[in-house]
Every structure is written in C-alpha cells, then in structure tokens.
C-alpha cells in the first residue's frame, strides 16, 4: 500500500516505521525538519517538509495515488482538515484522523472520516487495567466500548453450555479454542476444562461478566 502520514510526532513516526517495516510505501509530512529525527536511520520512506494541507506538499507526498492517509499532528482541527482534503479532493480510500476531543471525534465520524480518540481509548484502557486486572482484554474495539476478552474455562464452568454466559447486547462468547483449534460455538456447546473463550463484552458489562465467570 501507499500511505501518506501527516505529522511526524511520536505516533506519526512509529506508525511510519511500522508500515515501512511491513513493506508499505510511506511518505510522512511535517513542518519541522527536526521531527524527522524520530524516524531513526533505518526508515526507508519519503520525508516531506511542509505544511500539511498545502496542495503542493500533499501532491509531493504522492496523495494522488495513495491508498491510505492518516493525520496525526498535535492539532485536532489540522487533522480533520487534512483528512477531509485527502478524502474530498483526492478520493483516498482509507482516511484516518486522530482527534483528542472525543465529542469532536463523534461529530467528524458524521463527515465520513474514521477518527480515533486516544483520550477515550486511553482512559477506557487505564480504567480497565485498574478495575479489571483479572480479565485480560485482547482487543479494544471502537474507542474501547467493546472489548474482546480471553478467559480459560475453570472447573466452575465445565459442563455448562457456553451460551449461558451470553447476555443480549452486552456479552457474547464469540469463539472457543479447544486443543489448539478455534470454532464458533452454537447454542448448547458444552465447555470443557482448559477451553479458551474469546468473549465480546461491552466495557460497561465487564463487572457483570466477572460475576458470571466467577472471577
């Protein structure tokens, strides 16, 4: 993929390196040449010095044939305008903007931009670590509203059907891994000792899940 990143801060630099290491063609834009030091010597992509939504700068970064665009500068407004420019003016198929303010992030979703709010995500994550350190989240979805949790079946659950754990709209056993093979349970699938459950749970329902699991 060809990816254009706007903003070479900590997130931008790390994103650029991750994509580049996976073999993607990366161009990263920043106004400050010193920011590019964060990339390290091994970075193989393009570094473009300039202002993020200047047409010439975007085109120099290859936005006209980019498959994805991410705006991760320090400014929410700059990120949203950069993302909108990529989407509206260059029809970039995948556009992601980092927006610190969670309310604004929701509003801009309406404008067709995928937003990530590290504020909500970080707060949810930290709360989870503080309050639910005994259930381990494997994956946070959206801004942390839904978590995928991994639980090993202990004796208290053995012999019960996995759907007994489900609560409509809040908790669902999505997969069972038994002897190294994963499958999607049906109604009545009996849990065995040592089964690994992957449970999709609304973050607000984690206490309820813990009660059901008896942890």
């Amino acid at each position, binding site marked *: 993929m060809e990816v254009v990143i706007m903003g070479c801060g900590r997130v931008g630099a790390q994103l650029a390196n991750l994509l580049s290491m996976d073999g993607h063609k990366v161009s990263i834009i920043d106004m400050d040449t010193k920011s590019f030091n964060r990339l390290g010597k091994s970075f193989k992509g393009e570094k473009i010095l300039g202002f993020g939504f200047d*047409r010439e700068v975007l085109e120099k970064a290859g936005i006209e044939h980019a498959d994805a665009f991410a705006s991760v500068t320090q*400014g*929410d*407004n700059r990120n*949203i*305008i950069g993302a909108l420019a990529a989407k509206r*003016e260059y029809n970039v198929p995948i556009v992601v903007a980092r927006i610190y303010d969670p*309310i*604004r992030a929701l509003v801009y979703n309406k*404008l067709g931009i995928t937003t990530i709010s590290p504020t909500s995500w970080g707060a949810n994550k930290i709360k989870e670590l503080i309050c639910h350190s005994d259930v381990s989240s494997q994956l946070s979805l959206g801004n942390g509203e839904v978590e995928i949790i991994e639980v090993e079946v202990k004796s208290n659950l053995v012999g019960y059907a996995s759907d007994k754990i489900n609560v409509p709209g809040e908790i669902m056993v999505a997969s069972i891994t038994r002897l190294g093979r994963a499958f999607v349970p049906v109604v009545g699938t009996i849990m065995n000792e040592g089964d690994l459950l992957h449970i999709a749970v609304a973050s607000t329902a984690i206490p309820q899940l813990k009660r059901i699991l008896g942890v």
Partner: protein
Amino acid sequence: MNILIVGAGKLGTHLAKDMSDRGHKVKIIEKNEEVCNKFEKMSNVEIICGDGCDPLVLESAGIKIADVVAGATGDDEDNLVVAQLAKLQTNKPRVVAIINHPRNEWLFKKSWGIDAAESPTSIISKLIEEDIDKK
C-alpha cells in the same frame, strides 16, 4: 438576521460592529480570555468566551438559529472547521469565511460548505496588479 461570528480579532470585531450598526443581532465567539475581557461593549453584540471549533460551544452560542455563520479567526484550519460544523446543522446557515493564507484558498469552496470566502491578501495583490497594468 442572527449572525454568529467566530474570532474576535480586528476583523471579527469590526464585522460585529458593522453588522450591529445595520440592525442585525450578533454573537461573537472568542477563545482567548484576555481578548474577551477587553472586548468593547456594543449594543446588539454578545461576546462568548469559548472555542468556536467546539460543537458544544457553537450550540450554546445558538448556531441552530443563526442565519449566517462567519469564520473570521486568524487560522484557516479553524475557519474551515467552523464551516464544516455549520453545514452539519439542519437550519443550513449561510457560511462565509476569511482565508488568511492564499495557499489555503483551494479548500474554501462550495463543496466544503462555504458559500463565500475572501482572501484579503489575494484581493490586495489583484488591486496592485490591476494598477500596474493600467500604467
């Protein structure tokens, strides 16, 4: 008309005064507290201290009943954001904006929800060139 201006710099302030002199009801949003405190009292002009790029601030300033929303800050990205938020409103206010830097002119257009935009720099440049052409 109800006019909502974002940015109480020189331009926004003069605009507010001019509009109130013409009998319109004006609200002006400014994020710099110091500027808000120094804002000269005018009849029919209400100053609101807050970030005009924040949807909640715009809402409490009455964007839903505004006939015109003007992005008049010194930052083009802020003026563009104000325009995007204004266009999301169901009352569809007319949106006007200032272009501070001519390089950003390409984004201030109808498809971005902007009904009218002007760049003072471009206007003066054109005037200068016109004058030269005449000589």
